[in-house]
């Protein structure tokens, strides 16, 4: 994909967000899809390419009345949608389809019509991790951080500051779940979930979803919304079980996805006006800032504490409040992409004035996968 050859021309989240007890998971996909299609001025019959995760794309495409010529069911956790964007751009560039819809819906909180299957006891994770008392991401995703803290001297206070800063952004977003300002003392005084992580250093558990529509640059001019141009993309994977991640202080998948995205976009870090880093837990923005190359190894805790990523800082990050304060359905990557699109359209509630380039970085299946998208409101 050449920078600026593909555009996002439709983007929307589900009508509700947070607690949606009256919609099942498949209908959350549909609600988001219908909102994104309306945003793009399209009908399901205009869509010829379809992608989603967790659910089979066949199920959602058929439910929506879409007849695809191209499908992608890449399902690698919460960053799957970053990978869908990347794959869709390649498919459009290859001529496999012209107009791609990517959907996410998850009844993460209410648990209505959920798709997720339990881990089988004869899988690798079922044999070599589940017997040791794993109970969801709070007890897996979090395991590396003590090694990071010992290696680089990251403090409990710095780790708590991630949540405090993101709450400042959430306070500017009417749709954010948690909007009241908080403090380091309040975060560190919260309920212990999995030492050293307290409640507010762990993501929310929400119902919701989102959808995107992508097309070629030639067609993008004909849509009602200001196009958001794709500049570059990247993806990679590492170990699906946390114990086998090569180095607990850095993510190989982050480094590869990030470097690919920056190189293909032809941009440097100084060009970035806005950043999203998937924050299922408070350490992820720290790993992300370093592995994407915004700061040196071991520097991200201080960088955040010095308010560089906060409102008024030089690198506004997770401006919707993030998974910690905005919403987190289970596969949050779609929400990070939505915020990047809003920032590039100039319609974000906490709009970064004059922002022209946004980097959106996702993680999936603990540190198992990663996808990075660079987008802009200016076509190169």
């Amino acid at each position, binding site marked *: 994909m050449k920078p600026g050859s593909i555009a996002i021309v439709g983007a929307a989240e589900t009508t509700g967000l947070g607690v949606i007890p009256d919609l099942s998971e498949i209908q959350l996909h549909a609600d988001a899809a219908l909102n994104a299609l309306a945003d793009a001025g399209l009908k399901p019959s205009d869509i010829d390419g379809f992608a989603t995760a967790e659910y089979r794309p066949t199920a959602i495409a058929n439910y929506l009345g879409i007849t695809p010529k191209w499908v992608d069911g890449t399902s690698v956790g919460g960053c799957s949608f970053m990978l869908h964007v990347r794959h869709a751009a390649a498919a459009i560039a290859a001529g496999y389809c012209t107009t791609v819809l990517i959907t996410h819906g998850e009844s993460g909180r209410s648990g209505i019509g959920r798709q997720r299957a339990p881990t089988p006891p004869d899988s690798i994770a079922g044999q070599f991790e*589940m017997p040791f008392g*794993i109970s969801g991401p709070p007890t897996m995703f979090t395991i590396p951080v003590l090694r990071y803290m010992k290696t680089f001297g990251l403090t409990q206070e710095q780790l708590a500051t991630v949540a405090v800063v993101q709450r400042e952004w959430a306070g500017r977003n009417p749709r954010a779940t948690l909007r009241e300002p908080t403090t380091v003392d309040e975060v560190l005084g919260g309920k212990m979930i999995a030492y050293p992580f307290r409640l507010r250093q762990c993501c929310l558990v929400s119902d919701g979803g989102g959808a995107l529509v992508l097309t070629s640059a030639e067609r993008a001019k004909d849509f009602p919304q200001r196009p958001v141009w794709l500049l570059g993309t990247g993806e990679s994977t590492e170990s699906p079980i946390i114990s086998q991640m090569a180095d607990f202080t850095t993510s190989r998948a982050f480094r590869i996805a990030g470097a690919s995205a920056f190189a293909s976009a032809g941009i440097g870090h100084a060009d970035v006006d806005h950043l999203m880093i998937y924050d299922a837990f408070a350490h992820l923005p720290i790993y992300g800032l370093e592995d994407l190359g915004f700061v040196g190894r071991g520097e991200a805790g201080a960088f955040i504490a010095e308010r560089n990523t906060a409102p008024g800082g030089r690198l506004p990050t997770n401006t919707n409040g993030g998974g910690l304060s905005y919403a987190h359905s289970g596969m949050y990557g779609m929400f990070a992409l939505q915020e990047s699109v809003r920032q590039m359209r100039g319609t974000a509630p906490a709009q970064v004035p004059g922002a022209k380039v946004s980097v959106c970085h996702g993680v999936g299946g603990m540190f198992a996968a990663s996808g990075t998208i660079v987008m802009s409101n200016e076509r190169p």
Partner: protein
Amino acid sequence: MTQSQRSLPRPTPETRHFWEGAARGELLLQRCDDCRHAYFPPRPFCPRCASRSVSVFRASGRASLYSYVISHRPAPGFEPPYSIAVVELEEGPRMMTNVVDCPQTPEALRLDMPLQVKFERVSDQCALPLFRPSEESAS
């Protein structure tokens, strides 16, 4: 711990030797006959060089604490708070486990502390490799 409720592994053809070894009180790893890489979890080829010529060997059981969390969440067969740890074996590979026979506190669980494997029988066929502080760290 209420062991009967704990999630138990179901061996596959590729991992059966590991679990049979554990039931005998042996921690078994594999090593590539060609590139000498020692690895875990089990598989019948070398994840570094793809050679199918690999051998099973008995590890020393000595390890150090690489990282962990102390879970306060309810889990079947566990009494919170309890550690979920990743240990680095003397031979190189890392594995998930629980560190037992010591207080489940940050003060008692120091990164890089020496550990020794201890097998805990959880069913007629199955024993799990857990780790306890070794003599050196207890002194």
